[in-house]
């Protein structure tokens, strides 16, 4: 009789004898993986949405009067003094008027009686991609506001600020939930294996007395841990995928969720989550059986 045949038979026997507690652990692991993966998915999608928003980031500096060519050159130098930028575009009062008319489209005739220079001149600045962190943009805008002739600087401050704090909060939630759920999963697996060990204490002691090696006793329990981690994470990820499909199906079309372009985890991340789950559950199982073997 070879080692693996005996070990698999023993693991099967354990699962049969303690199926109720095994089921509870399996559900706990599934739920833990589901909750953690859900928050992680929302988090990564929010980061994705954030970087897409950053792609369109531009700062608009409204000026109190139209700058001449020399003044434009001076302002350009001043701006670049803070940091290099991708693009600096000067918008004259007339350009601003026609842009606005374009945006109004067929309603542009409301502008007929308004003078073409009623809008302020402005500078549109597209910062370098390296300068798109919330704090850096804030510093840059403060610098621009301090330039002579600047009336106001706009870059959707409120929206960027809220988004920044939301992603920060989400980071904390993901990290906390991750830690709590990892502890829960490890504790539950360790507890179930301990129950199995207590349930079979007589047999395990007898196995030691008749000459079973530690690996002969330990391996079936490790297999249980691996199985719980694997099955739990597969079910958890499947449930999350079903939820993701349901959301994608019901919330497609124009709207906020469409703006975010929800994506599921790439295969490498899914494999990583399954692997981590297996490792954690095996660890829970290993610690329990080691305690028994040291007794």
């Amino acid at each position, binding site marked *: *009789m070879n080692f693996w045949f005996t070990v698999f038979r023993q693991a099967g026997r354990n699962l049969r004898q303690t199926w109720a507690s095994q089921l509870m652990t399996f559900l706990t692991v599934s739920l833990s993986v589901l909750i953690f993966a859900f928050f992680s998915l929302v988090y990564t999608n929010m980061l994705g949405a954030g970087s897409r928003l950053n792609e369109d980031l531009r700062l608009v500096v409204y000026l109190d009067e139209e700058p001449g060519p020399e003044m434009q050159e001076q302002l350009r130098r001043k701006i670049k003094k803070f940091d290099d930028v991708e693009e600096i575009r000067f918008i004259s009062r007339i350009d601003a008027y026609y842009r606005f008319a374009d945006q109004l489209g067929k309603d542009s005739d409301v502008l007929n009686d308004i003078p073409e220079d009623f809008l302020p001149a402005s500078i549109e600045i597209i910062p370098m991609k390296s300068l798109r962190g919330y704090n850096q943009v804030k510093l840059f805008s403060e610098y621009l506001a301090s330039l002579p002739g600047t009336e106001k600087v706009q870059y959707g401050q409120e929206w960027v600020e809220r988004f920044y704090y939301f992603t920060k909060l989400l980071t904390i939630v993901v990290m906390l939930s991750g830690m709590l759920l990892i502890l829960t999963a490890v504790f539950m697996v360790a507890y179930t294996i301990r129950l199995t060990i207590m349930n079979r204490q*007589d047999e395990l002691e007898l196995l030691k007395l008749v000459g079973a090696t530690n690996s002969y006793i330990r391996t079936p329990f490790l297999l249980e841990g691996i199985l719980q981690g694997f099955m739990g994470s597969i079910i958890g990820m499947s449930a999350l995928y079903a939820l993701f499909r349901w959301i994608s199906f019901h919330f497609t079309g124009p709207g906020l969720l469409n703006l975010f372009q929800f994506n599921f985890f790439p295969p490498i991340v899914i494999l990583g989550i399954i692997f981590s789950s297996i490792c954690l559950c095996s660890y829970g199982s290993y610690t329990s059986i080691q305690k028994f073997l040291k007794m």
Partner: protein
Amino acid sequence: MIEMIKVGRSYLPDIQALTDISFAVATGEMFFLIGRSGAGKTTLLKLICNMETPTNGLIEVAGYNINKLKGKKLAFLRQKIGVAYQDFKLLSDRTVAENIAISMEVSYKKPQAINQRVRDLLDQLQLVNKHDTLTCELSRGEQQRVTLARSVANSPRLILVDEPTGNLDASTTERVMELLTRSNKAGATIVIATHDESIYRGSNKRVMELRDGKIHSLARSNH
């Protein structure tokens, strides 16, 4: 096969179970350990198979200081020691065959060989019809025989038997002793702790009597 030098075993608070036990059992010998209840027979057997550790003294089994062995080395030595415990240590939710097979499974014997050996032993001990019976459904005498079958199943080099005939009638006692004698003739060293004078009387085997945890006498039984 077994060497004990000045072995003592005490329990808290101040119970001295064994004191200054020194003796040797040769390879292939059948050795009897006698004495009243509480004399220390079971403790002595437990020390030999490393179920307990001595408070002092040296115990060597097959040339190894059994109390120094750990891990795989201890496991492999234990595979060569068959023990029939006084409290049987049977798994009540397993069948008779599974209980006997357990000692062979740990040394990875082939399933066919295990089945054959289990059937042979059940036949020798008149338990063939109990092959698939749960051990909790057996009488004490039957449980005792299953314990004995498990101890000899893996053809160990040393067999320790604690009160093998305590719950048996005369004819079953004879069968049990036949089984042990056969194992002994096949080369196994056997140590039997017993109250039952009939199993060693006239056998010309060495008998050691314990009294209050000390060796009272050690001589051949030829009367």
